[in-house]
């Protein structure tokens, strides 16, 4: 009798389980057909980085806070003491997408976009160059840099 009881238990649980599966089958699908339907990313989504160079004051705070040192920022000071950016590279291969650099940026020129579909064939193409030696950014007043630094340290 014990075996028949087990047989009945098996049939019952099979019926219950298949009932769940059938109910789920009749519900609408939740799959997004990916390349045609893309998920909506919220505003705070941490995607690839973007630097709005005209607003950058070359204060180096993003480079200092980055845990993996993926920034290469080169700037010179001219005779008036103004900083001029010559190079602003971000190595996205190293980047952890933590967002710490965007939090400390005093002018909010460094932001994280919603982009994540940037697969490339070559690793070197994932190094983002925002300023190049042939086209440096405009020089920045040192007083402006100091003011931004002070505001950031207070806030």
């Amino acid at each position: 009798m014990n075996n028949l009881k087990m047989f009945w238990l098996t049939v019952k649980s099979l019926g219950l389980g298949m009932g769940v599966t059938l109910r789920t089958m009749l519900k609408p699908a939740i799959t997004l057909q990916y390349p045609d339907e893309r998920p909506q990313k919220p505003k705070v989504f941490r995607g690839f980085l973007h630097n709005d160079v005209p607003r950058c004051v070359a204060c180096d705070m993003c480079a200092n806070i980055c845990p993996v040192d993926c920034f290469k920022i080169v700037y010179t000071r001219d005779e008036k003491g103004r900083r001029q950016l010559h190079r602003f590279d971000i190595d996205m291969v190293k980047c952890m997408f933590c967002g710490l650099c965007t939090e400390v940026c005093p002018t909010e020129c460094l932001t994280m976009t919603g982009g994540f579909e940037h697969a490339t064939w070559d690793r070197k193409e994932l190094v983002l160059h925002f300023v190049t030696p042939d086209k440096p950014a405009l020089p920045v007043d040192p007083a402006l840099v100091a003011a931004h630094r002070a505001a950031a340290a207070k806030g």
Partner: protein
Amino acid sequence: MAIHGCYTARFPRRLLLKDFMESLLGMTAQPQRLHSAHPSPDSPEPHLVTDEMVLNMGPQHPSTHGILRLILKLDGEVVRDVQAEIGYLHRCKEKIGENLQYNQYTTYSDRMDYLAGMNNNVGHAIAVERLMGNIQVPERAEYIRVIMAELNRIASHLVALGTYGVDIGAVTPFLYAFRDREKILDLFEEVSGARLLYNYVRIGGVVRDLPEGWGDRCRKFLDYLAPRLDEFDTVLSLNPIFIDRTAKVGVLPADVAINYGCTGPMLRGSGVKRDLRKDEPYSVYSRFSFETPVGPGPRGVVGDCLARYWVRIREMRESAKIVRQALDQLPSGPVMAKLPRILRVPPGEVYVRTENPRGELGFYIISDGSPKPYRFKVRSPAYCNLSVIGEISRGALVADMVAILGSIDIVLGEVDR
């Protein structure tokens, strides 16, 4: 008919399909005899000697949940000894901790137990806050931390149980679990910007406030989750095949568990009612009422795989209860304490443990007054839980190895750090 000699006294013979069919249909089979390793002149084939086989449940294996190498010594199909080789995912987190400032380390703490990022963040934040002399974290931040930690506990258990089903052979509940987990990840994405590695709970609070309407979306999710958990029970937990494969398998007695340092659902599955959220409450856990599920499952004995699975299923319901209470009690106010950008931590040391979905996550931080820690040690629960595998799988069958490993619920990122 009987199968001689391969079961030890700890594992009583379970009903096999063959027995069932024979007794139902009245058939008999030829008696099977396994040759012993030391043949005697009386045995039918004295010239055949059997040997122990070494089987590599190798680093690449879908059921090891990561890169783990288990070296099994088999006598036929019975496991005589298991040696676990770890270290394939060692990423030097402790050495990195010595070279980074305290607030830069939060992203790294996510990546250890990557299925429970919020819980790791909370543990790290509480450890550094205690080291700094118990700085005052705003109340709203404490409540948000609890909500995030418990939601992440639900998400982590859904992965654990879904993948456990897949290891046993039940593929359907895996996708149901991941479908429900997607909703949690969507909630987390709205709050922190990432789906798995959040970097949200920082030292001194949380980095940004909850967006508009998040609380309502969370409540809607909790209402959606409760019938899904019942469905999960129907499909997996009360399934006779699942119970047959997990009951009385991998029994871990309570004193062995404590001796090996097992914590979390492993310990609670062995009948020991210990939960850090209740016994040494940190953050605001003392303000919520919830149960601590313990002990044997619907069938089987205390300390077997089914008991641990049962504890995890019940824990998900308790976590949902906690989140509801926290959402109701959520105060308004700031979410981050006022702290300097470069934290100056006074010299000293602290060992703080918090309840991770896998057990007790401990941070032992020694500070010498500089912005970087002197020693940063992480006591990971999965490391201690995994060390017990040699003890509990002696005498089990090869197919049970997968069941036992799945019930321990390891995350190799945490085991290897």
